[in-house]
């Protein structure tokens, strides 16, 4: 049963629509991520749910009650702001204790819970400081602690970990997930970090210009993006607009000019109507071409244009007859610029999108 | 005045109230020597409304202040008379009227309030700073005094008197407006600024910004303290009488009591006390003062009779024109 529903929501600033015909349904206890490019309306959606913003149209149902006009403070939702919004006149302790005091929690209990949550966000010993005496990441953690400590009915996170280093981000997201699941708090989570979204969420919604393009569980989105936008957004950097698409013997045969490609059709694959093939840089195979190498099936000849070191792997931009492709590959010795290469498109890694 | 007004302090006291509108100086003296005995005798409570002439008169005009008795200088009192703000007084109820100078009996016209004191408007100067002693109004026109004197503003009570003096200087017997203004124009180079309040005169005088100027005699003591060699003169052309009057406000519900109060103000007892305290010069002819006590007071029938009195009715009619001309012709 869905805990809350956004129905046909429209929001606009200065007569320009930011959200339009926006629909979202979330089940109790679930964590749903909103992913999307900068400016697509993620913060706006959260602010709407929190009640800071009134929609021009549409309805917001929470626990089957119409919440569209319920005032912010009656909603008992926790909000972690993109810009932290800490109270400058209060110490860290008081910032975190703020919500608890309002809930008339006993003094000892407040002390306990605040210290506990500060422990979780790794800020023991900072209770007496004021916000302006903290680093960016520290402020962000206070903002998280402040929202978590009240154990709200709904948690809204707006890029809560954006200013933390990888390790902290990981441990924080584990903590958030733990608390969220332990207490069964339904959560809407906005982040630009895909790994974060995928690892933490029950469902991921990919937004584009104020609408949700795809809403599914992380694995599905990760593997089977339904539109070109989603595919591109989650890292399918390589696209081929095929001329023809045909189904044959449980496989799909695609043609682009003189080249033919084959895609494995598996059970889960949702979109076979699209005409665009998409594949991730990580999944493209690249190897140096010796003079005599023939063109393998699902393969292309090309030439390395750009090389970048990514840490784990090297990234190449390869120029081919049907366009440039980006490839990431781990290898001991990088390929050099201008090198002739063979690209292979594994048939179970390419997907079709609208 | 109705006694139920919240504004008054004593809520529970049953006795009537007499609301007296006055300037507010020497309040302690009046409280002790005038109000208290009167309250006791008539079982009444006196409540004061203090402030300057104009403000208090304005409040009476708006009918807000429930004032029974009002003290005003003759200039403002005349406005009240003209606007029909005062009750006629039953002179038979004010037995002490017989004891006062004739000029003081009804300066505003028959039936209106008497003056309870007369002050003299003359000249004060700093004998150290002027070359020749000043003896006449005319002396203020002396070129030696360039930028060294002050004169009363036309809007103050004594302003018209000085204008009258200017008319006299011009040689005209009757008051001649044009000639007066012509003379005024001539004196302006001597004038540092006009004064609206006596305190300004005192400050300028004691700080040496001015060395001479027309002022009421009652304030001379203060000048003398600042400038020991200050002198006060009754100009040869004559000093002017400034009369402070007491009236009963129209619509007063304490008319009887108000008249008794006026009568009390004129009584020898009160007049003498206030003269001896150097607060108000007496109008009551029965008051006898020693020379010491009479210094800086307008005392003695001879002096009083020598003072020039202006026709306040005329002044009032003209004041708008005068103010206007003064503004345009003198100070611009």
């Amino acid at each position, binding site marked *: 049963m869905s805990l809350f529903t956004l129905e046909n929501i429209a929001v606009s600033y200065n007569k320009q629509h930011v959200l339009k015909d926006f629909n979202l349904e979330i089940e109790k206890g679930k964590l749903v991520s909103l992913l999307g490019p900068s400016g697509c309306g993620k913060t706006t959606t959260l602010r709407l749910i929190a009640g800071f913003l009134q929609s021009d149209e549409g309805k917001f149902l929470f626990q089957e009650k119409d919440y569209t006009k319920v005032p912010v403070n009656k909603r008992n939702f926790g909000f972690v702001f993109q810009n932290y919004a800490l109270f400058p006149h209060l110490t860290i302790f008081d910032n975190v204790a703020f919500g608890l005091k309002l809930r008339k929690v006993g003094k000892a209990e407040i002390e306990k819970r605040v210290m506990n949550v500060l422990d979780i966000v790794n800020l023991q010993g900072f209770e007496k400081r004021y916000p302006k005496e903290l680093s960016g990441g520290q402020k962000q953690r206070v903002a998280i602690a402040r929202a978590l400590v009240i154990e709200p009915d709904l948690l809204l996170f707006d890029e809560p970990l954006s200013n933390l280093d990888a390790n902290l981000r990981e441990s924080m997201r584990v903590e958030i997930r733990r608390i969220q699941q332990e207490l069964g708090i339904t959560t809407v989570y906005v982040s630009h970090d895909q790994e974060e979204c995928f690892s933490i969420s029950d469902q991921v919604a990919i937004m584009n210009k104020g609408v949700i393009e795809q809403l599914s569980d992380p694995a599905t989105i990760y593997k089977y993006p339904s539109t070109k936008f989603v595919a591109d957004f989650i890292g399918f950097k390589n696209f081929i607009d095929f001329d023809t698409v045909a189904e044959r013997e449980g496989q799909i045969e695609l043609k682009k000019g003189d080249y033919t490609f084959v895609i494995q059709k598996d059970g889960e694959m949702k979109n076979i109507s699209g005409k665009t093939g998409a594949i991730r840089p990580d999944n493209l195979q690249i190897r140096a071409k010796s003079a005599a190498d023939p063109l393998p099936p699902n393969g292309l000849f090309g030439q390395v244009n750009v090389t970048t070191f990514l840490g784990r792997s090297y990234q190449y931009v390869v120029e081919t007859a049907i366009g440039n492709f980006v490839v990431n590959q781990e290898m001991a010795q990088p390929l050099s610029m201008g090198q002739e290469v063979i690209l292979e498109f594994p048939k179970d890694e390419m997907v079709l999108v609208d | 005045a109705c006694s139920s007004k919240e504004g008054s302090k004593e809520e529970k006291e049953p006795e009537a109230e007499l609301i007296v509108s006055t300037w507010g100086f020497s309040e302690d003296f009046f409280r002790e020597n005038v109000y208290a005995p009167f309250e006791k005798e008539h079982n009444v409570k006196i409540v004061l409304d203090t402030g300057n002439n104009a403000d208090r008169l304005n409040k009476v005009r708006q009918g807000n202040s429930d004032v029974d008795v009002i003290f005003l200088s003759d200039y403002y009192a005349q406005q009240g008379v003209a606007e029909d703000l005062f009750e006629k007084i039953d002179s038979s109820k004010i037995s002490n009227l017989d004891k006062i100078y004739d000029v003081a009996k009804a300066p505003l016209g028959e039936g209106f309030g008497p003056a309870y004191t007369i002050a003299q408007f003359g000249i004060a100067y700093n004998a150290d700073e002027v070359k020749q002693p000043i003896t006449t109004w005319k002396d203020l026109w002396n070129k030696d005094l360039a930028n060294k004197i002050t004169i009363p503003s036309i809007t103050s009570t004594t302003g018209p008197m000085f204008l009258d003096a200017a008319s006299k200087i011009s040689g005209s017997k009757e008051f001649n407006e044009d000639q007066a203004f012509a003379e005024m124009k001539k004196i302006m180079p001597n*004038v540092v600024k006009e004064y609206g309040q006596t305190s300004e005169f005192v400050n300028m005088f004691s700080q040496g*910004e001015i060395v001479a100027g027309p002022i009421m005699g009652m304030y001379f003591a203060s000048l003398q303290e600042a400038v020991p060699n200050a002198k006060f003169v009754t100009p040869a052309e004559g000093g002017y009488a400034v009369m402070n009057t007491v009236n009963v406000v129209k619509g007063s519900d304490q008319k009887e009591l108000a008249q008794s109060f006026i009568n009390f103000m004129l009584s020898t007892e009160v007049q003498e006390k206030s003269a001896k305290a150097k607060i108000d010069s007496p109008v009551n002819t029965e008051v006898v003062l020693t020379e010491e006590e009479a210094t800086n007071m307008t005392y003695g029938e001879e002096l009083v009779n020598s003072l020039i009195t202006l026709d306040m009715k005329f002044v009032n009619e003209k004041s708008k024109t005068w103010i206007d001309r003064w503004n345009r012709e003198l100070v611009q």
Partner: protein
Amino acid sequence: MSKKYIYLLLLPGVLFLTIFMLVPIFMTMGTTFFREDGFTVEGYLQFFKDPYFMGILFTTLRVSVITTIISIFLGFPVAYFVSKMGPRKKAFLLLLTIFPLLTSPVVRSFSWMIIIGKNGVLNNILTGIGLIEEPLSILYTPTAIIIGLVHLFLPLIIITLVGVMENIEPDLLTAAESLGASKLGVFAKVVVPLCVPGLVIGSILVFVGSFTAYTTPALLGGKQRVISTFLYQNAITLNDWQVASIVAVIMIVVTVLVISLMNVLAKKLNPRG
């Protein structure tokens, strides 16, 4: 946020002002537009045709504008300095700022008489060190009025501005500096525009205060007339509220014009405000 709610916040204040101020004022001023024969602006025209009246109007305007400008120039840097102090020092300096407001205008003008008078402290010092021979005559001139008014109103502008400056995020100032703005540049390009709302209200307070001031010009000015003298003469001495109201209406119109002008200038400095 629903609009209704906003108006609800404003309602009590507006109601209060309407009942106790706007209605009485309109009733008072209404009389200046009506004669027996209906609507007229005759009363106003007379004033505008009168060179004497226009003269003092402009004198007053000039004095007020100069006072305002001087107050801004003195007050702004001081407010900036004060706002940068630690909380304790800041509170202390603000306290000192309001002290002058606790003295009666009469004594205050007396003290100025002592300072700038013929035999005043200033003249004594200046002649003492031989800078001048003849004492300066400042007292009883428009300059004296301006000095007195600045002394009177400077605290208002300082206090207002400090309140505004405190809410400016410090990183904005560093950002401007890192982009190459000198201290003065930061001040002019960031601090000033962000202070515009405070500056506007501060200037309005000073301007209106100076424009309607009575006591200070009366005591420190010489034979100089200002417009409030005129208003007082008519209202208090002559009890002519008709004329007083006309003068008041003219004063209000002039003030509103000046304020609009200030707002236009302010919009230039900070279009967002």
